[in-house]
């Protein structure tokens, strides 16, 4: 038999009130996030409206960025943002994958923790340090050894060769992409390592039991099991690369000229904003910079949306396979 405990109304009312307050507080906080998101888009749109109205679609396709004649086209920074991030991903994904596999599957146990901690420390280094290191330490090495080698090996191949033309100065699109790659390696590695260790032991041991090699276990057991989360990690890294500012500003060369060569200086959206916003003279210039911010916002948004879509298809395929 349960005894009804008499709780005085006063206490009950207080509890109900607190409950309601808590509920309201959490939902207001959650709503605030949406509100801020919409607010940012709106203010970027309003601020950039003058530029969008003046240049129309040409704002996205024009390569002229001239504060004196007030002609603004965002093609060069958009191209720079996408290409430098692409280089970064191409470099970072295989290396991060290798490190994560090493840490979870290959390395002896006593080594895993120190290397893992070192990777996490790398992720905590402020980006301006990467920029300074890139300009003063990495760029000379790159211009002396790496770029001449690339030019010699690939410079004469049609199509690809045009990527490696120009003076090897260690400042430009390729160096920026490589620095970005180094910056996002710790992020992607940390996520991949965390998801690789979630693979149940019995799955791996069963595979080893039926005679699978190390590599077969990684490729056929670990990877399929963690694919979704690993892809999520890559996109997180890509998101960081797209918005990176200081490190890029140091080494990309900050030039609004379009060039197919990766050795030539270029510009990214984030570094253009960092460079020009303070001293933008005239409304059209300021408005164009805000519109540029809107473009970056959209690019990041599209990338994240693509990631979500990819994850969804992977998910449904996985569950379909299992069923």
């Amino acid at each position, binding site marked *: 038999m349960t005894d009804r405990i008499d709780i005085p109304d006063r206490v009950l009312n207080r509890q109900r009130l607190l409950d309601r307050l808590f509920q309201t507080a959490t939902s207001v906080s959650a709503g605030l996030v949406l509100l801020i998101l919409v607010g940012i888009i709106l203010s970027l749109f309003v601020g950039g409206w003058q530029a969008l109205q003046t240049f129309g679609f040409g704002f996205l396709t024009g390569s002229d960025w001239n*504060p*004196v004649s007030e002609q603004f086209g965002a093609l060069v920074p958009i191209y720079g943002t996408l290409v430098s991030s692409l280089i970064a991903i191409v470099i970072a994904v295989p290396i991060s994958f290798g490190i994560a596999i090493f840490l979870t599957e290959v390395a002896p146990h006593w080594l895993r923790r120190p290397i893992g901690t070192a990777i996490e420390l790398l992720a905590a280094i402020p980006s301006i340090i990467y920029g300074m290191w890139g300009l003063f330490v990495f760029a000379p090495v790159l211009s002396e050894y790496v770029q001449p080698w690339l030019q010699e090996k690939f410079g004469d191949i049609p199509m690809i060769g045009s990527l490696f033309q120009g003076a090897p100065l260690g*400042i430009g699109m390729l160096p920026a992409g490589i620095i970005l790659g180094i910056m996002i390696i710790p992020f992607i590695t940390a996520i991949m390592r965390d998801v690789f260790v979630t693979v149940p032991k019995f799955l791996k041991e069963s595979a080893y039991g039926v005679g699978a090699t190390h590599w077969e276990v990684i490729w056929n057991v670990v990877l399929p099991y963690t694919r979704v989360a690993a892809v999520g990690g890559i996109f997180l890294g890509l998101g960081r690369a797209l918005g990176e500012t200081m490190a890029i500003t140091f080494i990309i060369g*900050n030039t*609004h000229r379009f060039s197919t060569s990766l050795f030539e200086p270029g510009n990214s959206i984030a570094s253009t904003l*960092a*460079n020009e916003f303070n*001293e933008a*003279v005239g409304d059209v210039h300021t408005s164009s910079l805000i519109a540029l911010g809107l473009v970056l916002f959209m690019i990041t948004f599209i990338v994240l949306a693509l990631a979500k879509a990819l994850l969804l298809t992977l998910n449904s395929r996985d569950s379909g396979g299992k069923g």
Partner: protein
Amino acid sequence: MSSRFAAQLKRTAISAVAALGLIANLTYADTINGAGSTFVYPILAKWADSYKTKTGIGINYQSIGSGGGIKQIKAKTVDFGASDKPLDVKELEEAGLMQFPIVMGGVVPVVNLKGMKAGELKLSGTLLADIYLGKITHWDDAAIAKLNPGLKLPKDKINPVYRADGSGTTYIFTHYLAKQSAAFKSNIGNNTSVKWPAGFGGKGNEGVASYVQRLNGSIGYVEYAYALQNKMTYTQLQNKAGQFVKPDSVSFQASAANAAWTTTPGFDLMLTDQPGAKSWPITGATFVLVYKNQAKPESAQTMLKFFDNAYRHGDKQAEALDYVPMPTAVTTLVENEWKKNIRDSAGKSVWTDAMIQK
């Protein structure tokens, strides 16, 4: 419940606002707020420091860039703005502002050439313009060799380096180049940031300095103080009188002394390419912007006393930081303009000679 809660909230809010107002009132009296030029920041900070020890009044200066300084003073969020680019008389009138120069500095070309010592290479304005236009692309070009007989010039490609961020330094530099070359004027023009047809962009003086030190065969332009502090290889320049001069305080002073301050309304004067055999051709001043109509005369007086103190007792500090102080003839002129132009709401002059800082 909700109405009681709301009433409580309202009371809290009112007292918070009142407290803030009190704080604002307290601080208003003993700080002056300014914003703008990054170029002038080191010396302004120095002046502010010694003024604070002298009078107890602090200067809060945000070095957000000249463009930002102009925007802030127009939005009336600061007591004064500072810009490396003078506003023209029409713009000043429209905003109800007056401007005056407070300190000067020089912009110097710096190069990175193997074996070249500071002050060895001679350049002219048109040559510099052609280099930045991308017309002259190699150091052993006949035009450069012609000005430098006997000097061994390398075959290296020229890498021009410019300021990627908008800056007063770029404004002064392009102002000079546009005066020197019609092609530069029509193709590139004069602004705080322009579209450069060749080269690399570094962020800030330090960015340009490090790119120049990094890239072989490069040429850049930085403020004189940066060139000295980083021991960079600066060049000589040919001035309006046809003489080759080295950048130093003598040549900057000469340029300022020969400038037509007295005859230029609103002090709207760029110091590039001034006459005089000793004048350094790329010199510029930083201008302070204040409102002519001051609703709070006491705080306006405090501000003007600070600038007066800097004019009268700040020269040594300026020189120690490689700035060029304004000549006395100019500062006297400026203070006369204060008397004539800066007034309180009753129309009374805010500045009097009695306020001169001993």
